[in-house]
């Protein structure tokens, strides 16, 4: 094959060969151009603009004024920002742990038995694919605080008093978390199921020969084998939890009384309603740094465990 190519090259005149070569280097860049231009305009320019704005007091008509780290200082001391950061972290941790645990338990329970039950798996996976905004509308109706609300009438069967859910400062964040766990669990379950396929079956048999109980088998064989999957899911879920916006925006918009305000809803309000673009930009940079640190930390932990 390579011989034929060489011969063909030789047949061309030196001039044409050069022209062909000159065009060659351009070809990959032409194919990449659409992607790179779109990324430049809609990812990189906004990102740098964000970084720049975070050091300025942004004023549309008066011109921007350099304020150094003032915006950052403000978000670190502002009560609203600190509590929003705290809410984001609580939401991220709660959602991550909840979906991981439930997803793992369900994956273990249906492994083997429901692996081929197409209907069960498909039905259980639906929450993952449906549009977030629509899901939130459904949950808002189900969380209706009166006795006739769906979830309240279900827990009424269990003789539990009607709960206010989204309309109380004490339970708004937890209610949002409930919906996010509902949506995250099937995803984690599917990935765990895929991971379980890779566990070496002969190890189970060997463990049984050695007289290990099911519990020991789970703890010493299955869970260690799932570790890489576990870390990936944890990182993904934690990042998704930190940057959550739609869920909160649709369900409570941060209310009541700021009890479910998360970073992104607060940033959105500062940027688009109170026009404090510089402060909002600083908040974005902090959020970005947090997700970046999280990703890198998990990667390092994985490396160390692997070696």
């Amino acid at each position, binding site marked *: *094959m390579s011989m034929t*190519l060489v011969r063909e090259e030789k047949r061309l005149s030196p001039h044409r060969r050069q022209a062909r070569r000159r065009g060659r*280097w351009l*070809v*990959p860049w032409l*194919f990449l151009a*659409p*992607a*790179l231009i*779109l*990324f430049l*305009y*809609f990812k990189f*320019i*906004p*990102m740098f*603009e*964000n970084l720049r*704005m975070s050091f300025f007091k942004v004023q549309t008509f008066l011109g921007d004024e350099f304020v150094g780290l003032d915006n950052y200082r403000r978000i670190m001391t502002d009560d609203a920002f600190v509590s929003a950061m705290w809410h984001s972290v609580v939401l991220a941790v709660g959602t991550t742990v909840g979906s991981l645990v439930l997803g793992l338990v*369900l994956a*273990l329970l249906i*492994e083997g038995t429901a692996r081929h039950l197409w209907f069960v798996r498909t*039905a*259980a*996976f*639906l929450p993952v*694919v*449906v*549009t*977030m*905004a629509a899901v939130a*509308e*459904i949950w808002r*109706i189900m969380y*209706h605080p009166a006795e006739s*609300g*769906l979830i309240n*009438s279900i827990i009424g069967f269990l003789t539990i008093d009607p709960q206010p859910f989204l309309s109380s400062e004490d339970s708004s964040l937890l209610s949002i978390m409930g919906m996010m766990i509902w949506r995250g*669990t099937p995803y984690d379950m*599917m*990935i765990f199921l895929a991971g379980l396929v890779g566990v070496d079956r002969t190890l*189970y048999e060997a463990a049984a020969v050695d007289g290990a109980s*099911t519990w020991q*088998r*789970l703890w010493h064989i299955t869970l260690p084998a799932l570790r890489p*999957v576990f870390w*990936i899911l944890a990182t*993904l879920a934690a*990042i998704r939890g930190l*940057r959550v916006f*739609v869920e909160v*925006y649709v369900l409570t918009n941060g209310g009541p009384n700021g009890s479910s305000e998360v970073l992104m809803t607060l*940033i*959105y309000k500062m*940027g688009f309603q109170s026009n404090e*673009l510089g402060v909002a930009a600083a908040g*974005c940079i902090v*959020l970005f740094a947090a997700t*970046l640190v999280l*990703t890198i930390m998990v990667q390092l932990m994985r490396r160390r465990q692997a070696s």
Partner: protein
Amino acid sequence: MTPHRFDSALGLEARRGPVATVLKLLLYAGMILVFAGPLWGLLVSAFGQTLDPTSFALWPDGFTLENFAQAGDKNVYGYLFNSFVVVGFGLLLQMLVSVFAAYALARKKFRGMTVVMLIMLATMMLPEEIIAIPLSLVLADMPLLDVRLIDTYAGMILPVGAWGFSILVMTEFMKEVPVELEEAARIDGAGELRTFFTIILPLCRPALGVIGVFGFTMIWDQYLLPLIVANDPGYYTLPIALRSLRSDEEVGIGVLLAATLLALLPSIIAFLAFQRQFMRGLTSGAVKG
């Protein structure tokens, strides 16, 4: 093949007998009820006659299209049309951009390739939410171009045109296409574009299914982007219109339910139709990080 008690971690499939069977069925029923129940409830309520805003029927009471008829008066179908315009053109653009970029990354060797790969990965590390505010400024006044994309379809389509995930999925797949086919085409005198469209692309059909269904869900699920682009309600997509429908005093719960159902049906249909591709993309994406 009979189930073996070493086929799974807990060995549950080997448990037979009435008690085990009942427990299993309860588990499946519970899963279906918890995860699909709310969606089922939406379906029956949207077609139902009860207009009580507090409760959500899990069992149909009557069947009526009244809610969908009234939805027309509130421009729900206009919002749906906007959503389809954005997802249609957005997906077409996204898939074209992805296959072009993947072709360069998978089939060519050139200086700067590592940098380009890093750029792609960097865009995936950057949560789109955090650049929403500067993105709205860029869309209001595109640098160098002097174009305003606020209140245009283009403003909602172009930003989703390039997506790192689908470029990388496509790149991985294209690397597997045997290089001999491409060389043969070249010796036959086919140009770069013809080789690409007649040899490479047809072989990538399975991967096109994957990026197609993921791209569809991704674009259909966009919320912040239409929120910052559409100031004029005439450009609202259905997902963002839901919230304003709800706060409109004149809109009853029936119309809201109908609109919500219309907002999530397309993603469910896309998932059911391309389930195999969806699962493949999901597991490969997660395993590779």
